[in-house]
């Protein structure tokens, strides 16, 4: 796999977040969180090159596209990348359900952090519902996104689906 493919795929997702899909107002947190999720998934995979600096730049790009506070999604992407990188080193995860659980916990933590950070930024309590909705939607989308990225990495869906991160060699 080309070393720039992970960054390119996330870049495409970042641009896709800015396209006018006509989504309801409550779904606005979902698309940027999918970008963060992609960063997390790529960083989990062994032999995949996606440096922290690239994650930061992709997060910054998400901020620029969304027009929101600069550094917000960059911070989210950095946290997701750090957690993904730690998991790659620590447990060599292969089970989808385990990864799903980890992402659920991380997405909820990011949601709470986002809500607090947003409230601090605007100096008022911001509406929590769009953030919760986006978090839950990202949790529901996790298997789809992960399988999509595995497909990009290997060029096809593997025959053994439980063994998600088999080495490509």
């Amino acid at each position, binding site marked *: 796999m080309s070393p720039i493919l992970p960054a390119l795929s996330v870049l495409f997702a970042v641009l896709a977040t800015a396209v006018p899909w006509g989504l309801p107002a409550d779904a606005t947190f979902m698309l940027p969180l999918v970008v963060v999720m992609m960063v997390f998934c790529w960083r989990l995979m062994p032999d995949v090159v996606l440096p922290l600096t690239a994650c930061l730049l992709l997060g910054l790009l998400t*901020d620029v596209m969304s027009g929101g506070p600069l550094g917000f999604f960059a911070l989210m992407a950095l946290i997701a990348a750090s957690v993904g990188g730690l998991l790659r080193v620590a447990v060599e995860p292969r089970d989808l359900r385990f990864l799903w659980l980890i992402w659920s916990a991380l997405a909820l933590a990011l949601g709470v952090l986002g809500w607090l950070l947003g409230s601090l930024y605007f100096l008022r309590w911001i509406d929590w519902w769009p953030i919760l909705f986006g978090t839950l939607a990202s949790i529901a989308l996790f298997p789809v996104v992960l399988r999509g990225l595995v497909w990009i990495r290997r060029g096809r869906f593997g025959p053994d689906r439980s063994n998600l991160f088999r080495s490509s060699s």
Partner: protein
Amino acid sequence: MRGGASSIYRSPRRSWRRARGELLTFTLYFFCALLLVLSRIGHNGIDGLRERFVDLSAPLLEAMSIPVIEGRHLIKRARTYADAFAEIDRLRAENDQLKQWEWNAKLLERKNAHLRALLNAVDEPALNFVTGSVIADARGPFLRSALINLGRDNGVRVGYAVIDGNGLVGHTIDAGSSVARVLLLNDLNSHIPVLVGPAGVRAMASGDNSAELRLDFLPDGTSLYEGDEVYTSGSDGVLPRGLRVGTVTGTPGAFRVRPYADLRALDAVSVLFFDTPELVNSDPVAGPIDGPLSAAPTSAASTLPQPVQPVSSVNPVGSAVKHAGAEDGSAAGGGEAQADQ
């Protein structure tokens, strides 16, 4: 021995690499925090960089949004076909009503012209506008905004009102050379002074990131009714008076405004060139203005498309405004509109 020597040799190198990695991680986190602080205090350099980048990425965004917009049109058309018969019945009933209104409107127009002639009233200055389309839906969790394919090259400056065929959409908050960012009505930072109902009660329509707007600062004991019209008062010295905003919903004590414009599915929008001294002072880039409330900025006038026949939109409340609105498919045009001033 050799193995032991090599491990002794490698150990500090590994720890140095690790320390370097940790330092990089810390630097990146610190950089994010710094950016957040700079963004909060509205650092000019940050804003300028953002604008320049959005300007550069505009063609790519425009190209990417074409299939999505076409897809949305297809879905809309399919829905229309599915409800065609019910829609025909509804339109027939509406047409009958509109014929009555047309007769009333003609009578009032004649009366109005007669009274204006008696008073020797001065004609209201026309407002120029230019029409473009939404190329990116920049709606993050904290911001409800849209990028449009009109910028300073088209005469757009920060603070101009943006409307679509149904009513007010928002106002421009950033303007690059070929794109501008529109802060939508329902954004947390959007506060529009409005007049409500036939009595023209003054209030503030504030966004809270939901689909409807809050009505703040209503005088005590105000009696409003569901369906009352809400339109701009122009008292902020930025937006023209009389632009349609929406209708009142909710109950006493918790009145809200449902915008006429469908803010989640914007397509073609028009930017009204309404220059006030306040606006020119805050964003003098577009060039000098001709008068206190000039039309299109002079620097932009030559690049503007020739005015087209304006699409008049009748305001139900005392015809406060006759503004041109962008309808689907009428992108990249220009024209004139009139508003009470």
